[in-house]
Structures are given as C-alpha cells and as structure tokens.
C-alpha cells in the first residue's frame, strides 16, 4: 500500500464526522468545599450531551475523577474546570477526588 494512503487512512477517524456534539445542558455544577462535593448526587438528563462545571471553593487542590466516565481533571484552589460528557444512558456514575481518599464519593444519576 502506498505510504500516503496509509497516512490518510490512519488519520481517517479524526475526520469521520467532525461535527461537534450539541451540548444541551450547560448549567450543571458540582462544588467542592469543606472537604466534600456538593451536591453529593447530581441528577442529569439521560440521552443528551452534557457539560458540568466543577468549582473548587476550598484551599486544597483536588483531582475530579470519574472511573466509569473516564474523566480526570485537576482543579486548583479557587479554580474551576469544565467536564464535557457524551449522551449518557440512564444509570449511575461515580465521581471522586483522586487526591483525597477520605472525601466521600459522589454520584451522577442520569435519567
């Protein structure tokens, strides 16, 4: 196979369907303060792309992580990050602070 075709095919997944998913709900928020997440349980609509803002209102650095959602972001004290999620099936998804094992784990419920 000619090399240039190989390179083109290798990069094909990048261009297959370049459209940015339409994010329906951008108002979702999770706060971290007093060494815990609030709310502990966040209910979100299933079947639509989401955007969650994680606000760190504490003086400690956290790593917002979800194993099942495959998300991992460091949030500086006083800072915030945006976590984009695909359309979720109905169900529950974990989130936790990977820097502090004693912080209670939270749950995102899609329904």
């Amino acid at each position, binding site marked *: 196979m000619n090399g240039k075709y190989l*390179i083109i095919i290798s990069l094909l*997944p990048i261009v*297959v369907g370049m*459209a940015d998913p339409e994010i329906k709900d951008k108002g979702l928020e999770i706060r971290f303060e007093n060494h815990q997440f609030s709310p502990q349980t966040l209910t979100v609509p299933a079947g639509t792309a989401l955007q969650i803002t994680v606000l760190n209102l504490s003086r400690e650095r956290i790593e917002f992580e979800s194993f099942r959602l495959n998300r991992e972001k*460091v949030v500086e004290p006083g800072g915030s990050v945006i976590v984009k999620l*695909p*359309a979720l099936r109905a*169900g529950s998804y974990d989130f936790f602070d990977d820097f502090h094992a004693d912080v209670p784990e939270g749950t995102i419920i899609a329904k």
Partner: protein
Amino acid sequence: MAAPVTNRSIRAALGFALLFCAAAVVRCPAQLDPWEFEVYPYSTTPRGMAEFETDNASVVDGHAAGGEGTASGTVRSQGMWYNSYEVSYGLTDRIEAAFYLNMAQPGGSGLQWAGDKVRLRGRLFDQETLPVDVGWYLELEWHKTPQFDDAVRELEFRPILEKDVGRLSIMANPKFEKVLAGVGHEQGVEFGYVAGLHYRWERSLSPGLEFYGGSGLIDHADPVGKQQHYVFPTVWGELPGGLEYDVGLGYGLTRGSDHLIFKFNLELERFVGAILKASPDNGWLF
C-alpha cells in the same frame, strides 16, 4: 449504565476498523518497542503531576538467534527481560514530557543499559469536542546499544486516537518511525501500531485487549511471515495507595513474532508542583 451507541460512535468505529485493515495489509518491517507494551490514551498527565512508571516484558517463548522476534540487535530474544523506567510530567493540562531509561537482561546475563528516550505527548481540544478524541506523540530515542538495537537514533510520531463507547475505550496509536542514525538511516519511514480495547469494570480490576505490531517500511513492507504482530489479553486497575498496574500475556501471531511475552507495568502518580499556568478550557493545543 453505558452511553448509547450513536451514529457518531458507529462512524468512529468504522474509522478505526479501516485503520486496522490498513495495518493488516500494508507491507513493512516489524517495528515495535518491546520496552513499552503500553497503549496511550487521549488523556495526558495532569499539569503539575509526575508519573513514575516501570514497564517490564519478559520473553517466555522467543527466538534463539539475534535479530529475530523482539530482538533488534545481536542478542537473542529467548529469555530476555525488557525493563524500562519512565518519569513523565504534566507541563500543561494538554502536554506532558517524559524521559525513559531502558534496561535489558538477556537470558543468563545481568541487567544492562540499553538506551534512553525522551518524548512529548499532547491532546488536542477537550474530551467530547471532536467525535474521536485526538492526541499526538513525538519521541526521540538515542544512545542505543547495538546488542539490543542496531539503530542509533530514531524519531517517532504517533497520532493518538480514542473513542469511548459507554464503559469501553477504543484506542489506536499508529506509529511512524524514522531511523536518523545507525542501521536503516538511509531507509524511509516505518509503520507500526499500538491499539487497545479497555473496558472499565471496576477501578481495582478491569479487562483489556491490546494489539502491537508493525509491518516495516511504509512503501516496502516485510513479508507477513517476517512481520511481528501480537495480541495481549490484559487486566489493569488501581491498587490501594494509587498504584496502577497493567498485566498481560502477549501471543505472537506470525512466525516473525516471539511466541509468548509476559508484560507487567506499574505506575504511580503524584502532584509535584506546576510550573506553567492552567490551560484555558476552550484551548486546543496548550
């Protein structure tokens, strides 16, 4: 619990399928890195974090002569232990830098230095911005020792592609490698691949299936029997204390491959301090 299979997911899966078909039919000399049986995901080491990792591969059933199987030098692959130490650091929220020290222990001999390499790796945009999450990887390998690899300096580039479908992550790292000095420097670009399917079952224990191989020069591949292709069923997860592991058995799929390889990788991530400011949420490169 998993995300629904959308048209975008199907289109992305089609793209990956085409990629692997290309890898299967292209001719090329088997180029894979036995010091690092690891599939790179889209995500990078977070800014200010350091990751300490050791990658190990032991050739349980290999070849008896040098230059065959995973052995690119004069030492035989049978009984070889490939042992590497890696330190990577999150420069920004989208770019990490890493240094590797490669060691090797041929069967019946002591552990020896085999080379070093440095690399930069990054991710473009943010997750879910593109239908397939895209990253990049640039590596310079040098100071190799001829008994383990007769190429002296090599430059490698990989696009990193990942698509999550529910709990399943589909990852592909097609590799393009050019020998800059040493045997093969007059030749063109070689093609190899690293790919994996990782299912997120439990944090402590999850299954995976990984693929490694190469076909040789992009425009002049090796006969299939001389190429190397491996499939590794793996288990991976996180142990108490944040120690992450990835263990697998690799089965060679061609005569040119070693027959059985055991891999065992360990890594630990710690925050050591950021030197650069946080990346903007709407950025795409830095």
